[in-house]
C-alpha cells in the first residue's frame, strides 16, 4: 500500500463525505420538489365538484372525477380481496409446508419474478385472457390485473411474517394436541396478524397507483359504470389521458387526480409503517 500523508487522507475523506452529502441532498430535494409541485398544482384543482361531478368536455366548467375516484376504489377493493385471499394462503404454504421442498422453491422463485415483472406485461396478459375472451373491457379485468400485481407482494410478506413466529410456539401448540391447521390459524396467523396487515397495506398502496395494467383492461370511462362488467373509469388512466391532452383545464384536473392518488398512496404507506413501528415498540 502506498503511504499517503495524513492531510491527504483526510482531504479525500472530506471530499467523499461532501459528495455523498450532496447526493443525499439531491435525493431529498427531488422528493420535496415533486411533492410541492403535486400539492401546489393539485390543490388548485380540487373542489367540491371535482369530488362529486362527472367529467365534462374540455372548456366546460364544473366537471369532476367522481366516477374515476369510485372506480379506482372499487377495483382496488376487489383486487385486494382476490390478492389477499390467494396471497395469504400461498404464504401459509411457503412458511408452513414449503420451506425446503422443491415445490416451495419453485413457487418462491415465481413470486420473486412476478413481483418485479413489468406491470404492463400483466396488462397484456389479462387483455389476452379476459378481454379477448369476454369481448369487451371491464372493471373485472382491471381488478384481476391489479390482483396479479398484488399477489406476489402479499405472498412473500405473509411468508416472511409467519417465519418470524418462533417454532417453539408451533411445537407447543402441536404438543397440546392441536391439529396442524388449527395451530397455523390460531397460533401462527394470530401472532403474525399485524405484520400481514402491514404487508397488505403496502400492497394496496402499490396497486392503487398503478396505471399500466389498467390501460387496456379496465380502459377508462367518463360515465358511471353500472357494473364491474363494463369499462370502468379510474383515476390513473384518467390522469394519463388528461395530462397528454392539449387542454389546460383537463391538465389541471390531471394534477388534482395526481394529488389525490399521491395522498392516498402515501397515507397507506405511512399507515403501514406506523403499524409496524407500533408492533416493534410494544
Amino acid at each position, binding site marked *: 500500500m502506498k503511504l499517503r500523508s495524513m492531510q491527504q487522507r483526510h482531504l479525500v475523506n472530506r471530499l467523499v463525505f461532501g459528495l455523498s452529502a450532496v447526493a443525499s441532498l439531491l435525493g431529498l430535494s427531488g*422528493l420535496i420538489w415533486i411533492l410541492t409541485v403535486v400539492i401546489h398544482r393539485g390543490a388548485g384543482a380540487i373542489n367540491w365538484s371535482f369530488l362529486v361531478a362527472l367529467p365534462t368536455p374540455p372548456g366546460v366548467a364544473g366537471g369532476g372525477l367522481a366516477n374515476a375516484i369510485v372506480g379506482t376504489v372499487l377495483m382496488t377493493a376487489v383486487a385486494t380481496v382476490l390478492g389477499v385471499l390467494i396471497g395469504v394462503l400461498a404464504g401459509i404454504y411457503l412458511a408452513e409446508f414449503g420451506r425446503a421442498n422443491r415445490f416451495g422453491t419453485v413457487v418462491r422463485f415465481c413470486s420473486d419474478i412476478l413481483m418485479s415483472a413489468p406491470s404492463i406485461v400483466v396488462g397484456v396478459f389479462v387483455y389476452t385472457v379476459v378481454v379477448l375472451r369476454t369481448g369487451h373491457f371491464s372493471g373485472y379485468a382491471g381488478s384481476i390485473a391489479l390482483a396479479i400485481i398484488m399477489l406476489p407482494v402479499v405472498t412473500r410478506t405473509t411468508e416472511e411474517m409467519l417465519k418470524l413466529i418462533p417454532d417453539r410456539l408451533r411445537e407447543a401448540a402441536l404438543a397440546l394436541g392441536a391439529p396442524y391447521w388449527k395451530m397455523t390459524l390460531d397460533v401462527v396467523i394470530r401472532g403474525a396478524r399485524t405484520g400481514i396487515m402491514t404487508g397488505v397495506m403496502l400492497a394496496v398502496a402499490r396497486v392503487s*397507483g398503478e396505471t399500466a395494467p389498467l*390501460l387496456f383492461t379496465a380502459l377508462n370511462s367518463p360515465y358511471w359504470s353500472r357494473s364491474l362488467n363494463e369499462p370502468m373509469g379510474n383515476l390513473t388512466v384518467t390522469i394519463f389521458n388528461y395530462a397528454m391532452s392539449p387542454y389546460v383545464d383537463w391538465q389541471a384536473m390531471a394534477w388534482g387526480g395526481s394529488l389525490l392518488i399521491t395522498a392516498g398512496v402515501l397515507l397507506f404507506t405511512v399507515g403501514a409503517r406506523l403499524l409496524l413501528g407500533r408492533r416493534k415498540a410494544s
Partner: protein
Amino acid sequence: MDRPFGAPVDETSPAGVLPDSGLVGPNYAETGLPAPEPYVRPPIRPLQRSRAWALRAGRLDPLFRGVTALFAGVLIVLMAGIVLELWRNAQPSIQEFGLGFLVSQAWNPVRQDFGALAPIVGTLVSTAIAMILAVPLSLGIALFLVEMAPPAVRSVLGTAIELLAAIPSIIYGMWGLFVFAPIMADHVQPMLAKYLGFLPLFQGPPMGIGMLTAGIILALMILPFLTSVTRDIFLLVPGMLKESAYGLGSTTWEVTRKIVIPYGRRGLVGALFLGMGRALGETMAVTFVIGNTHRLSGSLFAASNTIASTLANEFTEAAEPLYLSALVELGLILFLITFVVLSLAHLWLGFIARQEGKK
C-alpha cells in the same frame, strides 16, 4: 434450539432428564423482600371437545395442506400462463416476421410491417442512462445514511427515501412532462449541446422530451429502490470488521472502500440487477417524456420509445390482428428480457446466501 422446525429430535440425549438450571431462589426472609404469591394451579376444566373431535380435526390436515398448496400453485400457473398466453397470441406476428422481427426497424401499421428494433434499443438505452446516473447516486446516499449521517438526519432521510419509493410512477411522469422537460429544453440541453455538442449524442434540437429526459426520470424513479437495497447491504457488514479498521487509524472513506464495499460487493451486484429489472419494465414515467417515435437516432435529445411505452400508447389503437399480435410479441420480448435479468439476480443472491450459510 437450533433444530429446524419439523426436523427429527436428537434421540441420543437421555430422555426425561432435565439439566439442572443451577438457579436457587432467594431467601425472602433474609432479604426482607415481600415473598411472591405461591403458585396456585388453576382448576382443570373437563375437555370441551371429545377425542373423536380431535381425531376428525386431525384428518383435516391433509386438506389444509392441499388447499394452501393449491393457492401457492396459482403463482406458478400465472408465471407459465403469462409466457404461454403471450406466445400463443404473438403467433401471427412470429410466423409473419420470424426472427427478423428483432432486427427490423419498420413500424408501419398501414402497410402492416412491424419490427422491434427501435423499442428494444430504446428500452436498453433508457435503462442504461438510468443505471449510469442512479447507481453512483444511490451508493453515495446509502454511504451517507450508514456511515456518515448523524442519527437524526439518518431517520429523516431514510423515511424520505422510502416515501419517494412509494410515489406512483405516473406522478413522476406528470412531473417530468410539465416541470422537468421544460427545464431540460431551456437550460440543460442547450448547455450540453454547447459544451459536449461535438459528440453526436448531444446534437439536435433541444425539445425537452426525448431519450435523455426519460433516462433521467427513470434514474430518479429507481433511485429510492436502489438506495434502500444498498443501505441494507451496507448494514450487514459486521461492526467488528469496521471497528478493527478504524482502530488501525483508517478514515471513514478508507473503511468504506477497503472493508464495506468489498464485503458487500456480491450483494451489490444482485441489487443492481434487481434495480435494472425495474427500470426495464417501467412504463408510465417513461411514456410521458420519451416522445414516442419509432425511429432510431444517434442523439439522446431525439424522441424515441421503449417497449413499455409503445404498448401503453398503441395497444388500444391496434385494430388489425397482425398489429395486435406484433404488440403482444413486444410484450413477450420485454417479459423475457426482465425474466432473464431478474432470475440472474435471484439465483446469484440465493447462491451468495447459501455460501454465507456454509461459512
